[in-house]
């Protein structure tokens, strides 16, 4: 069983398209760090280093669509990545009802930016908290905006999980296409930065640098394109032994020309994954090291980098593997 990738899209700290993501990942480029600052109630200023997506293009791909006027960055990233993956022709076909596009959106943190702002307003005075902000705090708001943009009535689901959930979403897209729930499926992951989630990430390790963005794969069941085979996740039975779970996904005899890993460049966080991948004899690329950790979106970046390398004939096969923080490990293989 496999999926065919018909399009890819990415918004990352490297820029607003797949080419920039691939270029940065292949070069091992390190994107700039900026500081997120906030003031606590006692006047303490707390600063957190992050890697941001560059400013929105002057002509954003969503144009003047009414749904996009007040949305937070996560929805902008998601819609931009999805539109790049679909391409103009398919977007028009979808809006015209000639193409049924289902959406599977995965996220770890969700709409933290407006959740943060809204809860601050609630604590200040709930009677005057903004009714405009609240709907944008809901986990499925970004996917809803995308469906609205595409005028798609096909199923649209939002999945929560750890960093490896993107592979589960690929599995579900196979199921949906088998059920003929849609002609194609957009599998999208997106995250946005705010101080609360960035500070939370640093509780796991002081060197963690959060980032943001979105990655999208548009997949169909057949036709020309890079093939995604056997996307798979295995849940951890014990998070203290993530390596043994990952070994089930990545046996010693794995044959691939390139491994796109979820390594972060932080020894303690990487130990389990390193134990699995160090004996795999192939090129290794780790986008999180230079682009920061955008959680589910970073896993989408891994898949996009792997698929792009195959598409551009840089390798014949590539494999993306992610050891999620606390739920599951996931993998997918990409070939022509």
């Amino acid at each position, binding site marked *: 069983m496999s999926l065919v990738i018909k399009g890819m899209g990415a918004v990352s700290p490297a820029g607003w398209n797949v080419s920039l993501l691939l270029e940065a990942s292949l070069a091992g480029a390190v994107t700039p760090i900026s500081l997120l600052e906030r003031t606590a109630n006692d006047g303490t200023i707390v600063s957190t280093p992050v890697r941001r997506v560059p400013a929105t293009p002057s002509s954003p791909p969503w144009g003047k669509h009414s749904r996009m006027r007040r949305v937070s960055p996560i929805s902008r990233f998601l819609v931009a990545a999805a539109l790049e993956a679909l391409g103009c022709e398919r977007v028009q076909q979808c809006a015209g009802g000639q193409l049924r596009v289902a959406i599977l959106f995965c996220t770890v943190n969700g709409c933290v930016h407006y959740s943060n702002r809204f809860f601050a307003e609630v604590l200040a005075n*709930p009677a005057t908290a903004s009714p405009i902000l609240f*709907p944008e*705090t809901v986990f499925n708001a970004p996917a809803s905006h995308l*469906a609205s943009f595409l005028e798609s009535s096909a199923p649209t*689901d939002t999945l*929560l999980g750890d960093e490896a959930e993107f592979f589960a979403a690929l599995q579900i897209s196979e199921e949906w296409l088998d059920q003929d729930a849609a002609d194609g499926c957009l599998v999208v992951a997106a995250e946005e930065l705010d101080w609360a989630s960035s500070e939370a990430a640093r509780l796991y390790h002081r060197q963690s640098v959060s980032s943001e963005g979105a990655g999208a794969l548009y997949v169909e069941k057949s036709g020309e394109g890079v093939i995604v085979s056997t996307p798979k*996740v295995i849940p951890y039975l014990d998070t203290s032994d993530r390596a043994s779970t990952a070994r089930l996904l990545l046996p010693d005899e794995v044959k691939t020309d390139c491994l796109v890993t979820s390594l972060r460049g932080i020894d303690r966080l990487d130990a389990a994954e390193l134990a699995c991948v160090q004996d795999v004899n192939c090129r290794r690329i780790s986008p999180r090291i230079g682009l920061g950790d955008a959680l589910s979106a970073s896993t989408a970046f891994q898949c996009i980098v792997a698929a792009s390398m195959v598409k551009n004939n840089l390798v014949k096969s590539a494999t993306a593997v992610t050891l999620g923080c606390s739920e599951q490990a996931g993998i997918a293989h990409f070939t022509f």
Partner: protein
Amino acid sequence: MVVTGAGIVTALGTGWQANLQGLLEQRHGFRPVEFFDVSRQRAQTAGVVTLPPMAEFQASIQGRLKLHRHDRSSIIIHQAIQEALSMAGNITLDGVPICVGTSAIAMPIGEAFYRQCLDQPRSMRHQLSRVHGYQAHNQIGAVVRLFGATAEMRIISNACASGASAIGHAFHLIRSGKASRVLAGGFDALSQLVFAGFDSLQALSPSGIPRPFDAHRDGLAIGEGAGFIVLESLQSAQNRDVEILAEMNAYAAATDVHHLTQPHPAGCAALQTMHAACNMAGVEPHEVDYINSHGTGTPLNDVAEANAIASWAGDKIAQIKVSSTKSATGHALGGAGSIEAVISLLAMKEGLIPANLHVRTADDSVKFDLVRAVRRQTLNRVLSNSFGFGGANATILFSKHTAA
């Protein structure tokens, strides 16, 4: 495929019997909210679940739940899952995939993290535990591992349709042969952010009493709770010789792109899912004995759903029996779809149509038979609708199991 277990926790009570009793007595579960400040909100009540004291709960469960990492929703989930697994023959979750819907996850844990960041920015005490416990997969994972869970878990967050969507995922896992048994359901517990959110939208009834399908309805009442079912292939159930509660015949999902928080006035997506579910099951509208409606009590939702039901039923509309049990339980958001799925099973098993409480004058859009007082009736097919913010629409169809 069939349902072999069901568990339910709502403001009416914990468990099948308590909820049956509440529905038969036509009670509601709206009480003052006392565990966060609502003094400056328009609405100050909700469908509040009565929980056991923490120590009593901890002593009653097998294994240990690190309660400082959890909020009230973990207890609610545990109670509903325990009942579902017990009813299904005291099974464990070893090797059983799990599909869970939630909208608010462990929001109170996130709120506590946020408050401490603001009030004590230098203190990291409990903060890592909160970050860990706030994440849905960690929260739910900790609970289901107490029941031996080892297999994959899907967490679907489609706002107020989440619970129904989760059951839909389970339906397709079994239908495709990928699993022979799945635990599916949904939950949400009250939290300050979500309560204030609905209040800010002026979506909450100031009186605290929702009146779905009433001409003068003025909003919903938030509730909390969980509903879980054990869904399995008929073969799997027969192999275990376990009692079958019902058959699940169909699930359909569609997206309403009209507005982020408002349905299309004609209920286009709801109409689509009701048609699709009935087509999948090979059932005509007049063969559906009862619809457990989404029926929130907000002006826009109820008209859209009533219009959709009217379009779906055509000239049979007058004989279609409908009620919204949110009038008794409140709207449990991400848990609503699965709670109402369990209530649909309960209605079929116990032979009753629950009442749509608090209606004084039915809205003009109501052309169906709005059931205002509980009725004793044999039900062979029940349909349950769920709609959510963002346009997630889902319809589930159950039927009475008839041994071949």
